[in-house]
């Protein structure tokens, strides 16, 4: 029946999209190596008060690697 098939296909598509989102996040964080000038995301959202711990860590990491002054 068409509607049963639609439910199955819709569920599969949603699961694929969700998996792709999680996989992309994992790949970008753990597999793709950081390159100077190619790190993304740390400045995505403006922190109006304080920088997030991750941003501080990244800056320290880059600083110690001599990538930023």
């Amino acid at each position: 029946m068409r509607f049963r098939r639609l439910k199955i296909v819709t569920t599969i598509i949603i699961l694929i999209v969700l998996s792709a989102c999680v996989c992309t996040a994992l790949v970008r964080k753990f597999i793709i190596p950081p390159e100077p000038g190619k790190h993304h995301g740390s400045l995505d959202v403006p922190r109006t008060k304080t920088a997030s711990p991750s941003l501080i860590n990244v800056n320290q990491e880059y600083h110690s690697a001599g990538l930023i002054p």
Partner: protein
Amino acid sequence: MLAGVTLAIAYIIVVISPLLLVMALHLHSPNELLYEIARSFGLSAFAILCLQSVLIARLKWMERPFGMDILSRFHKSIGVFLAIILLSHPPLLALGGGGWSLVTSLEQPWYIWLGRFGLLALVIHVFISVFSSSLGLTFEQWRRIHSILAPLIIVLVLVHSWETGDDLKEMPVRGLWIAFLVVFFAAYAYHKILKPTLLSRHPYRVMEVKQEVHNVWTVKLAPPKGEVLYDYYPGQFHFITFHRGGNLPVEEHHWTISSSPAQKDFISSTIKDSGDFTSTIGLTKPGDEALVQGPFGRFSYVLHPDDKDMVFIAGGIGITPFMGMLRHMRDTKADLRVVVLYANRSEEDIVFRDELAQMEAGERPHLTVVHILSNTETDWPGEKGYVDRNKIERHAGPLDGKAFYVCGPPPMNAAVIETLLDIGVPYNQIRSEIFSL
């Protein structure tokens, strides 16, 4: 089947294309995982959002493998999914180290506010679409709101992601975003402007308006001068916009084609007065103009050539696609066996009663019509009550090799399909269509 699978795979590839692109560009991100997932949601959500207009642009090549009702349902379900992943975008960013000020603070830059407004508009949009009938909105009111909110959401989300997203600083990603935007507005413009303009240059003309019963009319339409009728399968539907002058409303609605495609001079729709716009259908006059877009739908025995023994279960005005099919069987002298279980409230609600009786008396198709009335207070000698297990088993006969076609009000459709499954009819032998798009 192959076209449908290809389109489904293409849809998935397009939706995840922003994710594939940022990975292909080797864009590393040092943030926490939840933060990254939120960003991935944002990226694929924009692709989904832009494809929403393509799904419902009435593109023939897209509609043909699935049917408009399936595309419309998919559009709705994906819209709900879209709202969920976009609603989870800000809290996931916050949980992933972005800080809760992102969600709670009023002191945010304008592009964050655009994102908030876009999200709010999307939630309202989805809510209105899912609960339109509970909210008492007419089809036309709902469609107007839909037509305004959709491009607004796209623009708000586009500017938000363009300004906020670090990935959007990469030219290839920007290029992809522009491509999505072009696709959205091309589909939107085709559906809302171009196609209606083209149709208005070739208007159909009302030939006849015939009252069938107290609240049902059949409107016959002649094709534009010098043109032939478009090809269609019996049981399909089309969209009609009547231009009748005076103060009569000009609205587009979809109705089943009740004529037979073997009849080449006219095309007809049988329309029930269900309040709102349809209450004016009896005021339509010969000579009035009508813009017709079609055909659409996959509810037709012609698409199932193996169906030789069929049971049509109709409720009220749900008889119209069956009438188109039966007329086509009669006109083509199809050697088919059909039992029609036709449910109505009372005797005066039975549409096409005489014509059905004539066809029953004819040779082809081999037709048996069983009228069932739910108003049990009358002295009706025939079947009374609803279409239930007992009546189906008694009238349909052995189930082996039979195909069941169901068309009626949604609660009736659901109940009948459940009954059919209970008595052992296989899923693939039940055919139905959701008429409300």
